[in-house]
């Protein structure tokens, strides 16, 4: 049953990723990307990570994609490199990047272990709940990294305002 879900949502994620790359309209690419994010969210649900699935839908499919569509609207260009991409399908650049993709794929699948063994206690997540476990990790061991992430976000916002100012 889980395998059926994995195959369905994984196929949807792969198809959406392909359409992101292949569609000619930038807005269509962004909308296919929303589909990819939602399919990944369902995969996270299948992996028993409800909190991460909710974050995926809210942060990726909600905030970041809204931001990207807003930027496309501001840039006001709907059909991008239509001709050049179609022409480049048989060029050296396409062939080289396709070979690169195949090599990366072989590396990724070759390096991934076929069976993973748990090191922590079995079913800790079921026993304590995922958010409990995650909060314990964030505010005890990962506190410094968590605060540094907030510094990073502040710096990003300041940088964006600095870049977008009118001279």
């Amino acid at each position, binding site marked *: 049953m889980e*395998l059926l879900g*994995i195959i369905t949502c*994984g196929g949807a994620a792969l198809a959406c*990723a*392909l359409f*992101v*790359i292949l569609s000619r309209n*930038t807005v269509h*690419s*962004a909308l296919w*990307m929303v589909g*990819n994010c939602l399919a990944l969210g369902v*995969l*996270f649900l299948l*992996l028993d*990570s409800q909190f*991460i699935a909710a974050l995926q839908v809210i*942060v*990726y499919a909600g*905030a*970041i994609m809204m*931001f*990207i569509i807003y*930027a496309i609207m*501001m*840039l006001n*260009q709907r059909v*991008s*490199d239509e001709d050049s991409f179609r022409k480049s399908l048989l060029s050296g650049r396409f062939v080289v*990047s*396709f070979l*690169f*993709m195949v090599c990366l*794929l072989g*590396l*990724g*699948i070759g390096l*991934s*272990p*076929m*069976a*993973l063994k*748990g090191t*922590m206690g079995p*079913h*800790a997540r079921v026993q304590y709940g995922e958010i409990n*476990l995650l909060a*314990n*990790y*964030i505010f005890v061991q990962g506190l410094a990294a968590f605060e540094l*992430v907030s510094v*990073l*976000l502040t*710096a*990003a*916002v300041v*940088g*964006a305002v600095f*870049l*977008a100012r009118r001279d």
Partner: protein
Amino acid sequence: MNDYQSVYLALSAILFALGAFGVICRKDAIVVFLCVEIMLGAVNLAFVTFSRANQSAEGLFMVMCIMAVAGAEAAIGLSIFVLLYRKTGSINIDKFNLLKW
């Protein structure tokens, strides 16, 4: 109990390779940015898979950090695109070969 971990990891590898392919062969800056997001999503999938396999929270914490980094990247990257569009009237990345003008 086999939890189909190799299926998840293979899916993550395929998604990452597709994203890298798109980053290399597309020229529209926004589509390149979307392909980077695909790669980040693939890495998130691998992190969550390993996190469930080890029954630990480190992977989930890394996923949260990656989401924050993706948000920061979106803010900076899109404002850079707007700036470049204002300067040159295009976001074709083949035209951006200057570091200063």
